[in-house]
């Protein structure tokens, strides 16, 4: 139908397309104007989402097309790794909509939900602008180009590609960097769960139920009905919904309530032990079934949240720009530049995606041109999730938002004190409304629950309850949201510990060969214990260090994640120059430059700023000097606690310096390789030699 209408000479196709795109652009401008010009009336979250969708459509249609055709010169006559190595397991040519879904499910986790929530303290506008501009020019470009690079190299991983294109030393540096970011990510995610479940019997019970449920699913899929994922997952979803429902009675019960009530440090130890055991169990028993379960829920929740925002059209209660852009905010300290750009990583640009885009996805691509839809489009979709998380945080009463996300050191731990401090900041709130919000979601307290998950859960619960079920179901939706996040965080902890174990074994193998054997039980235990203790240290300290927690670890996570993005984009730039396409190198060079400026500035400030609220070393020195002088500084309660604060901050400072050094080394290798390639008259990228598809298929797909 459309083909005939569009080829009618009376209405040239071009004009119709131009009108459509002009319409989308106009809608986008209108939405942005609505957001920016509305000074006194509250803005509906639906406008924010509309503006974002218009930006995504235009960026995808024009910029990604330019990258596909001019910069990367995708060629559908070239065989993809999926066709070349089709083995029915890893390498399978797959429909692009399916690859898109698969890739999206792999890249979107807790990251895009946490960062925007933390960044909401500066208002919704800075976060929105960075998410949109960042994704169009940096994040989606990175995912797309790395997917392209891997696709042209038989689906090789980021580390292998760095080694191939930039040499073995650069490859080793990238491996160490990847391990570092893995550990920091696991620590940050672990803390998010611990912070959400602390003193929450309802939440702890439902999350605990997921473990035996997943194991039952695993046994079912292995022994009873092999591979029947649908049946097992349906069972899992029903059990989880029942668990959420019964959780409220468990929490109220005189025996079971206290049995599921744990302090944050106890939960930290629990998740550390869990991580160690889970990552050594066979994958079919726990990891695989829970991964299926969490993928089902992830897709379901994201769709439900999008529908919820459009149907309910909640107003944004947070200001567009708050005074905390100056760096004095309670959620994370540091000024807008550079800290906004490392706080929101996933959703704008996330280095971790480079690992996924060079993992299973390139092995499924059917035609080269699909990489545009999967790589660029998939990241736009994640960015959309980040926008919804930002909306969910900003529809909350700002008073509640700050009560949930400020550390106890700033707002105390009683509703009275918190209400007083926050009202002084200019967001008037009463202790009663803080208590009421906690009651509404079935919790004893919502104070000091930094980490994004609980805030998002309250926001989501309010939106979903308005759409479905009203006040009565708010607590149900809250715990549903918590469970949903905990579910894929636990999967990430398990899978990440395994991945970290392999990396440690790789590194140890160079020192002492038997430790590198992945099939040896001894080597597995050693590497697992090393990996778990590394991230476990940060999780545990985050719960006992009075100044630690998500507020400390998240900047570190942001720096390491953006550092990995920097490495990936540096690789992409090297590849473009080696392909003799230096006139398009700005496509990757511009975001690289911006990321390096942000990461290096943020790293430098986090390490060496003389302001103890920002600089790790400054805080460490302040506490260690006071400790040796025998004075106890609040919020620490003893000299031992003071020394702990000092030590933790020395560790964090040193890690930051290490990350900065890694980026600088990688930049050096890029410059060196690029200069070499520029002098070289011939293309020198190490792509797999092109192989044409036989017969008339060449150039058929578009």
């Amino acid at each position, binding site marked *: 139908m459309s083909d005939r209408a569009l080829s009618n000479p009376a209405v040239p196709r071009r004009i119709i397309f131009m009108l459509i795109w002009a319409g989308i652009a106009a809608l986008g401008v209108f939405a942005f104007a609505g957001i920016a010009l509305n000074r006194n009336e509250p803005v509906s979250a639906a406008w924010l989402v509309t503006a974002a969708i218009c930006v995504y459509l235009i960026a995808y249609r024009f910029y990604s097309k330019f990258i596909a055709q001019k910069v990367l010169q995708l060629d559908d006559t070239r065989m993809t790794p999926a066709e070349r190595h089709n083995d029915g397991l890893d390498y399978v040519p797959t429909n692009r909509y399916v690859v898109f879904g698969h890739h999206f499910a*792999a890249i979107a986790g807790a990251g895009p939900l946490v960062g925007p929530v933390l960044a909401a303290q500066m208002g919704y506008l800075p976060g929105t602008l960075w998410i949109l501009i960042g994704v169009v020019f940096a994040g989606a470009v990175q995912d797309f180009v790395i997917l392209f690079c891997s696709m042209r190299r038989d689906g090789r991983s980021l580390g292998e590609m760095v080694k191939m294109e930039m040499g073995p030393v650069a490859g080793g540096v990238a491996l160490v960097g990847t391990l570092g970011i893995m550990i920091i990510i696991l620590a940050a995610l672990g803390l998010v769960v611990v912070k959400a479940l602390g003193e929450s019997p309802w939440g702890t019970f439902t999350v605990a139920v997921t473990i035996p449920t997943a194991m039952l699913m695993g046994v079912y*899929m*292995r022994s009873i009905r092999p591979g029947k994922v649908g049946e097992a997952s349906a069972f899992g979803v029903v059990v989880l919904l029942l668990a959420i429902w019964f959780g409220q009675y468990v929490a109220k019960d005189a025996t079971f309530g206290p049995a599921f009530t744990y302090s944050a440090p106890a939960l930290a130890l629990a998740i550390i032990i869990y991580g160690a055991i889970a990552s050594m169990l066979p994958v*079919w028993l726990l*990891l695989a079934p829970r*991964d299926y379960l969490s993928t089902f829920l992830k*897709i379901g929740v994201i769709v439900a949240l999008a529908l919820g925002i459009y149907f309910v059209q909640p107003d944004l209660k947070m200001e567009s720009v708050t005074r905390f852009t100056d760096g004095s905010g309670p959620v994370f300290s540091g000024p807008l530049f550079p800290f906004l750009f490392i706080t929101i990583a996933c959703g704008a640009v*996330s280095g971790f995606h480079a690992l996924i885009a060079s*993992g299973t996805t390139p092995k499924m691509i059917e035609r080269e041109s699909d990489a545009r839809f999967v790589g660029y489009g998939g990241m736009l979709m994640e960015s959309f999730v980040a926008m919804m998380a930002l909306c969910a945080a900003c529809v909350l009463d700002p008073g509640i938002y700050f009560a949930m996300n400020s550390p106890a050191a700033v707002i105390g731990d009683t509703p009275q004190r918190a209400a007083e401090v926050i009202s002084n900041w200019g967001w008037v709130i009463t202790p009663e409304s803080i208590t009421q919000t906690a009651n509404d979601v079935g919790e004893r307290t919502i104070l000091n629950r930094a980490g994004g998950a609980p805030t998002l859960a309250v926001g989501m619960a309010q939106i979903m309850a308005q759409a479905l079920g009203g006040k009565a179901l708010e607590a149900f939706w809250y715990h549903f949201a918590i469970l949903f996040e905990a579910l894929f965080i636990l999967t990430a902890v398990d899978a990440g510990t*395994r991945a970290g174990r392999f990396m440690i074994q790789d590194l140890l193998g160079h020192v002492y060969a038997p430790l590198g054997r992945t099939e040896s039980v001894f080597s597995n235990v050693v590497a697992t214990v090393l990996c778990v203790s590394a991230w476990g240290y940060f999780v545990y300290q985050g719960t006992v260090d009075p100044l630690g927690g998500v507020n400390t670890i998240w900047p570190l996570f942001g720096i390491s994640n953006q550092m990995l993005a920097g490495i990936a984009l540096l690789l992409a730039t090297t590849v473009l120059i080696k392909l003799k396409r230096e006139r398009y190198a700005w496509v990757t060079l511009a975001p690289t430059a911006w990321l390096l400026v942000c990461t290096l500035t943020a790293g430098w400030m986090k390490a060496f700023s003389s302001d103890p609220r920002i600089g790790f070393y400054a805080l460490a020195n302040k506490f260690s000097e006071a400790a040796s002088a025998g004075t106890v500084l609040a919020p620490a309660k003893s000299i031992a606690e003071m020394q702990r604060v000092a030590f933790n901050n020395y560790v964090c400072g040193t890690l930051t310096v290490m990350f900065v050094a890694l980026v600088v080394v990688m930049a050096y290798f890029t410059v060196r390789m690029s200069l070499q390639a520029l002098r070289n008259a011939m293309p020198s990228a190490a792509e797999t030699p092109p192989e044409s598809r036989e017969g008339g298929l060449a150039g058929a797909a578009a």
Partner: protein
Amino acid sequence: MLLRNVLNPLPSCRAVTGTTVEECVACARDAAAQLRQGWLRVIGAPDYGAYLVHHAARHPGTAPMSERDYVNMFIEQRFNVRGAGRCC
């Protein structure tokens, strides 16, 4: 448009006019099978049917793995690998 792309190629949907009820049922069954297969791929689940088709095309004359062996191997390959399957 989008649905047509996803479902393409569906042999029984080619003839639009003059279809019988049986053809429509067959078409719907094909579509459902394709959607199911796509969904399995999206969540990364094993698909024994697709494996059998692949095996018959690529390795004719050899015996395929049993469903149990295939599922076990698939899950092992997918989750017990070096690359992390999931992002933050």
